[in-house]
């Protein structure tokens, strides 16, 4: 598979995945752009792996989780944490506000936990594959997810 074919087929999906991770379209674009630049510069190595898509998703996820190390992280610092710049709207119907509260609670989670949630509930990956993407054991994936869900449930209870 060439880089062009890969980008034609997968770029949209990667952008959506990055939106779910970061919660912000601009940061999602930065994250995808950074990852895809590296993927293209090293395409031979990416293409040699048995599943380029999984490989790139792992690159992107690592970049997001290891935010202190990458150039992307420096931009995050400059822009502030996700959602800071988006004021909560009061014009929405109450139900919409409730629903979007789940979205804003997500930004309070540790990055690794959020990534695990996105991989399971958005990408619908089995736990073994989530473990592969995050580079940890299946048990760790499950405990991250259950801890994340517990945090969200607690927020939920507080509000209701």
């Amino acid at each position, binding site marked *: 598979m060439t880089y062009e074919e890969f980008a034609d087929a997968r*770029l949209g999906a990667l952008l959506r995945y990055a939106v779910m991770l970061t919660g912000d379209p601009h940061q999602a674009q930065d994250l995808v752009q950074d990852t895809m630049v590296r993927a293209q510069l090293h395409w031979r190595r990416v293409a040699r792996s048995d599943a380029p898509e999984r490989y790139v998703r792992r690159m992107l996820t690592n970049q997001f989780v290891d935010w202190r190390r990458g150039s992307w992280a420096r931009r995050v610092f400059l822009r502030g944490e996700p959602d800071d710049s988006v004021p909560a709207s009061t014009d929405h119907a109450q139900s919409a506000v409730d629903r979007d509260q789940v979205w804003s609670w997500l930004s309070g989670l540790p990055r690794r936990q959020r990534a695990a949630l996105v991989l399971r509930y958005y990408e619908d990956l089995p736990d073994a594959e989530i473990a592969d993407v995050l580079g940890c054991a299946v048990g760790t994936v499950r405990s991250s997810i259950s801890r994340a869900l517990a945090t969200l449930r607690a927020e939920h209870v507080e509000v209701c």
Partner: protein
Amino acid sequence: MIEHELRATFARHEELAPPAGPVRAAIDRAVHRRRRRRRVGTAGAALAAIAVALVGFTVVVPRPPESVRLGALPASPTPSGAVNLLLLGVDQAGANRRADSILLVHVPADRSRLYLVSIPRDLLMPRPGGGEADKLSWTFGRASGETGNLTAGYRATRQAVDRLTGVPVDAGAVLTYRATRTLTDSVGGVQVCLPEPVRSAHTGRRYPVGCQRLDGTEAVDLLRQRYGLRDGALDRDRNAARYAAGLLRQLREQGTATSPVRLSRLISEVAPTVTADTGDLSLAALSAVVASAGGADPLALALPVRARENPTGYGFEPDPVLAPSLLEALRADRMAGWVTAHPAQVTRLR
């Protein structure tokens, strides 16, 4: 319950994703910029690494390579075995550019010293597609084409050298006249010691027997000369090795290799004129390898050849006895033994 809400939340926010088209274009622009920057950056660093290695000092390359973290992959480890670099000196710009000087720099695994092995450009090579053999130096021009694409020319020559010698090339660089001129002037001239006088067929300038300091223009002029030399292009290759040895001596005497400030100035002056390829090695690994091969002066020799009749004119073929044993020694990293057994093959450098 919360799981269900999560799925719904994610689905609802899909529309936040930016359109792919502009992102794609931005990626391609960034890649283009990075490739250009990387080429220049690696060229300078690789050159510095080679210079440092030849001079025999361990220094930190002042402009570290761009670290490219690729997912969870480990960085390329510092190779512990022998390393081979390919340096090509090409003639002036235009169509049918030739690689007139082809130098294989061999760094043995014990890092005891460097071996500069010239590969004669007039070696006749079987064409990949069959048909009449042609010269190794032409490989460069055929691949670089009308536009003078140095990277393509380098790649094709590297493949040809690989086929010819079986010696794996790990990294390399292309030097133009301009690069050589800039490099020479940047270090304040290079002393070259000649065993025979040379008269330039291009400028009429005379270079007497003995040691002399050459500026950039003179160095390029000398390195182009083969008419009037007893062994023609083979003697030119020997002069190129003498120039390389003189350049390294100059760097050592100036302390350029030990001064990060001087080295970085040299790199910034020379880098834009050099095209380099660091292959699968990271620059850090490459620098570490060559920097550790210090100590002794480099040893220069040439792939032994003999003349061969050829319908398209004059050319060489590898010497049937000496060439295979030299190549075997290169591949097996036993150069010290080979040089001891064949002292007559070593080029006198000063």
